[in-house]
């Protein structure tokens, strides 16, 4: 294996991209990722906050103390992972993190790995999804993505500009990916539209340093309407219009507990912004 460290976008030529490596290194070690060429993109991905634009290379630790960003994003960063991981992990890498589904992480030949079965649906799934869980029941683990979706953020890549929401897709028979990222596509910057107050609430199985059981981001937009996005409830960050949408959840037998939890957090978040 070789490690390349390009200093300009023109030098990029295939390989597996690595920023902080908090996801990539464990997945390489487990054999869930394989490559002959690692590409350290820290030299080409912008880092830091400039007005409403955030470099995709900015670490979560930098964002958790950044006064100039909306509360929901700062709080999502502060509550994510552990201090060491927040110092190492980038915003871009966080948005592209893989599922924490234990079957997937243990290398089961499940649907997300290209197989024909969802082991979680038939097996252990207490941390899994309550929406869109028919094909793959994984629950999206990113606090930060939920916050950015609620805030209506956009992302600029080396190929296009799109809403953060459009970075994600539900996996299906024909395409098992949960993102719309093209090969060779690099996240460069996140842009935040003007927004009013925002909030992020997170339920964890302990008080600190855990993935979201359910995370709720709500941002009030210029026209006064709140936008709600949830972490930990679907294979991708999940938008709902209001608390009543939770009545349409399709929990698995052992994820039913997430529905009232999500309902309570959404109500609490809306009340906090009222």
């Amino acid at each position, binding site marked *: 294996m070789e*490690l390349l460290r390009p200093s300009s976008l023109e030098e990029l030529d295939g390989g597996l991209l690595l920023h902080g490596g908090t996801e990539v290194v464990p997945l390489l070690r487990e054999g869930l990722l394989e490559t002959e060429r690692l590409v350290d993109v820290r030299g080409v991905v912008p880092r830091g906050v400039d007005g409403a634009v955030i470099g995709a290379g900015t670490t979560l630790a930098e964002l958790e103390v950044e006064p100039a960003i909306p509360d929901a994003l700062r709080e999502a960063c502060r509550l994510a992972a552990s201090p060491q991981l927040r110092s190492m992990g980038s915003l871009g890498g966080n948005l592209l993190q893989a599922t924490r589904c234990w079957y997937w992480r243990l290398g089961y030949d499940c649907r997300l790995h290209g197989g024909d079965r969802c082991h979680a649906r038939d097996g252990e799934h207490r941390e899994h999804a309550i929406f869109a869980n028919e094909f793959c029941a994984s629950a999206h683990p990113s606090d930060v993505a939920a916050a950015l979706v609620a805030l209506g953020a956009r992302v600029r890549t080396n190929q296009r500009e799109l809403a953060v929401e459009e970075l994600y897709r539900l996996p299906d028979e024909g395409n098992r990916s949960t993102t719309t990222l093209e090969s060779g596509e690099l996240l460069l910057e996140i842009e935040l539209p003007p927004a009013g107050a925002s909030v992020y609430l997170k339920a964890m199985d302990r008080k600190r340093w855990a993935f979201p059981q359910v995370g709720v981001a709500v941002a009030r937009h210029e026209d006064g309407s709140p936008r709600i996005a949830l972490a930990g409830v679907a294979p991708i960050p999940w938008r709902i219009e209001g608390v009543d949408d939770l009545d349409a959840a399709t929990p698995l037998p052992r994820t039913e507990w997430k529905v009232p939890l999500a309902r309570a957090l959404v109500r609490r978040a809306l009340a906090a912004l009222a």
Partner: protein
Amino acid sequence: MSALRLTVNGGEHVLDVPVGTSLAQILRDELGLTGTKIACNEGHCGACTVQIDGVPQLSCITLAHAVEGEVTTIEGLREHPLVEAFVRADAVQCGYCTPGQVVSAAALVAANPQPTREEIRHAMAGNICRCGTYPKIEEAILSWQG
């Protein structure tokens, strides 16, 4: 094999190791600095915490070839008053998590010499102690200046 230059506890090292080797492996197996522990080896527990340019990071999931900056391990903090404070507060049981705890705590008190309990809990959350010495660790950090 691929050449690697590392500064650890003020000393320079030039090594030739395969890309993919973690910083923790280098510290323990190549440099004999076995104070840095490996427990989970996947970023969950904090036993392998070292400082890179003063910032606590997880050496088990850091690629040695990607390190930018100076590494400080527990061996480089031997004289730090926190070590004595941990002993005074009896903040050690099996001791396996302790080097990582001290490395994280040293970065905390360097930035914030008199942290509150809440600040300690936030900054130390990435260092798991299976023996449950948390209250004593908190006591050690609160009283580190003696």
